[in-house]
């Protein structure tokens, strides 16, 4: 233990001496949360919609009203020909167009299928996918309402009514969804970045022989290397959380000790990842590449930070189980947004714990081998 502390002290002074690295690790994350928290949102509201209504009756007006009332669409133009729609779409004036054909009501009333046409600009596939989903839901809803009116007369009560309730984030602000993800992402990156060079640097600079000969156990060495970065990571993580509370009204509905526990567990796993990378490679440049490959992309793409895991193909979903951020985000969102306790998150904590033990264990084994 004393030896571990000695390594920690040496590592700590090395961090402090490199002012820029320390400043970057401590303050830049909170600054970035501010920048990205404002910049990023998924709120697909007010999609610019052009409408060409060739029917002009109560049914078509009902359809239009449903598009507008959804708040997802703003009607910005009423073109009169397809070529005009095409021009507006190419020029980027509109992102979607709705064409209501003549005879829609007649078809509806004579047992036929009346096809409404919707055009969506697909140059951003992610936005287009969401607009696609909204469109489908709106038109189906209107179709059912019109059928109901025809079957039971205007004003008839539907046989089944829906009472939707949204928990935890009733206004569906995407900031509340994205900010916990950003916290996880920033913590992961700064931890991996700060440790992935630590051991390979000694090798590259030729100080590795000294480490090898030093009378210190491998475990003490790993613990000593990790401790200073653990505290730097913890301080930086809590600065981000406080910044998120102040700037974005992120509620912390659960308990702070539990939050501290979750963040600590995640940081240990992230630091272990960095250390493991550092023991596997023999140059700092390679450590950087591998570090990015195992931390940056999986944390952005496979963690549920931005993209829903349930929609991914099965093999990719299987890969996501080894991404620690996946568990951390469930725990973090659970604690800050849902205010839930330890029992509900036991699975996530267990997974995070197993991950941390495995990567630190592997890193120690690798190190022990390298030291001979």
């Amino acid at each position, binding site marked *: 233990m004393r030896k571990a502390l000695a390594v920690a002290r040496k590592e700590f002074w090395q961090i402090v001496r490199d002012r820029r690295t320390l400043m970057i690790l401590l303050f830049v994350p909170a600054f970035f949360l501010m920048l990205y928290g404002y910049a990023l949102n998924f709120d697909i509201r007010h999609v610019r919609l052009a409408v060409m209504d060739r029917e002009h009756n109560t049914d078509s007006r009902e359809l239009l009203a449903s598009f507008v009332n959804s708040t997802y669409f703003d009607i910005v133009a009423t073109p009169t020909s397809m070529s005009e729609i095409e021009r507006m779409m190419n020029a980027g004036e509109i992102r979607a167009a709705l064409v209501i054909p003549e005879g829609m009501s007649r078809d509806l009333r004579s047992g036929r299928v009346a096809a*409404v046409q919707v055009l*969506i600009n697909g140059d951003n*596939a992610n936005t287009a996918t969401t607009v696609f989903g909204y469109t489908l839901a709106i038109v189906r809803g209107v179709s059912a309402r019109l059928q109901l009116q025809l079957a*039971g007369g205007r004003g008839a009560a539907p046989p089944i009514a*829906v*009472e939707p309730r949204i928990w935890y984030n009733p206004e569906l602000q995407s900031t509340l969804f994205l900010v916990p993800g950003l916290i996880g992402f920033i913590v992961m990156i700064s931890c991996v970045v700060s440790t992935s060079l630590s051991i390979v*640097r000694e090798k590259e600079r030729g100080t590795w022989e000294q480490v090898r000969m030093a009378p210190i156990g491998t475990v003490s060495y790993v613990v000593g290397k990790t401790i200073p970065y653990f505290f730097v990571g913890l301080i930086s993580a809590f600065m981000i959380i406080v910044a998120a509370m102040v700037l974005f009204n992120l509620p912390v509905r659960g308990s702070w000790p539990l939050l501290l526990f979750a963040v600590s567990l995640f940081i240990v796993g992230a630091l272990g990842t960095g250390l493991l990378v550092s023991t596997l490679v023999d140059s700092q440049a390679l450590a950087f*590449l591998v570090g990015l490959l195992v931390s940056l992309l999986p944390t952005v793409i496979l963690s549920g930070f931005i993209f829903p895991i349930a929609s991914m193909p099965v093999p990719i979903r299987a890969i996501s189980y080894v991404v620690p951020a996946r568990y951390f985000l469930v725990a973090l969102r659970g604690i800050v947004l849902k205010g839930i306790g330890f029992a509900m*998150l036991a699975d996530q904590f267990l997974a995070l714990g197993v991950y941390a033990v495995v990567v630190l264990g592997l890193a120690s084994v690798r190190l022990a081998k390298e030291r001979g």
Partner: protein
Amino acid sequence: MRRLLFLVRKEFQELRRNPRMFPVIFVAPVIQLAILGYAATTDVKNVPLVVVDADRSPVSRELIGAFEGSPYFNVVHVTSNDGDVQRDIESRRAWMALEIPPAYGDAITNGRPVTVQVVADGSDSNSAGVGLGYATSLIAEKAAGIAMARRPAGAPAIGSLDVRIRVWFNPQLLSQHFMVPGVLALLLMVITAVLGSMSIVREKELGTLEQLNVTPLKRWELTVGKLLPFGVIGVIDVLLVVAVAVLWFQIPFRGSFPLLFGLSLIYLLCTLGLGLFVSTVSQSQQQAMMTAVFFFMLPMIYLSGFIFPIENMPAVIQPITYLIPLRYYLVIVRGIFLKGVGLESFWKDALLMLAWGLTVLALATMRSKKTLT
């Protein structure tokens, strides 16, 4: 020129001496493409749904069947205990819940209106919004079906509305088409800017930069010689990524390849210039890596339009995005790949990108003169 070639050869030898480097440089892009190509979709499908069926009648099972048959939902759990909803949603086993009240079947059979509840976990705002829309319209369809079935035999037939959705520029709405060309941009940035800067700083760290300085090499030869190998690797990566994108992901390549290639060289000018600049402001490889990751890579991922559309950003943030060369390159790459457009539609982006590259190169050269004399 001969001296320059010697230096380039030295760099390649150093890369070769590091045998693990090559596979990573060329395998990493493919892994990134695969992950981004398959996983990065905001599509909402298979939403895990918990159903509280307090009725347990054939009628309620029919409603549950409608959800089971829908590609948008995945019924994970049917229960009669409404406490399970809280538990499943809190622990994220389910993202949504459908609650069917006890008298549901009775009400439907006897023609009385009845209300079902749909709960969505708002902590995932995007999936919750889209999922609620699907659930509501699914139930509305069911309701309309019931109302129509109740009418006496011989009443006039009622049709339905259908929507034909056409997506322009990306008819199958594959997110690969959007994400994969973006990978090209990100990758070139990582390989050239970061590795280039680390390679220069490494010489500083090991003290060998001094030795190179006292050789008869001219300053520009030293710079070009250090960066050229990474430029070459970058060019190979361009070819590799385009090949994988077209052959494996079957992403349409509608524009001109020579144009893409030429503009990629300009983009490489930006990233190499950036690498040089980072190397002049860093004393150790760790600093170079931190500076590159936090000040260049992260803004590029989030503010360039790579994932999040720039037009969704607040007006204060939008001007910042003009400082990011990736922004221009993304417009160009996506334009050439997906829309098949040429210089006539993005000449402004190309010019701004060129200006950006020249500026950063000038800045880097000025700084490196100062630090080395």
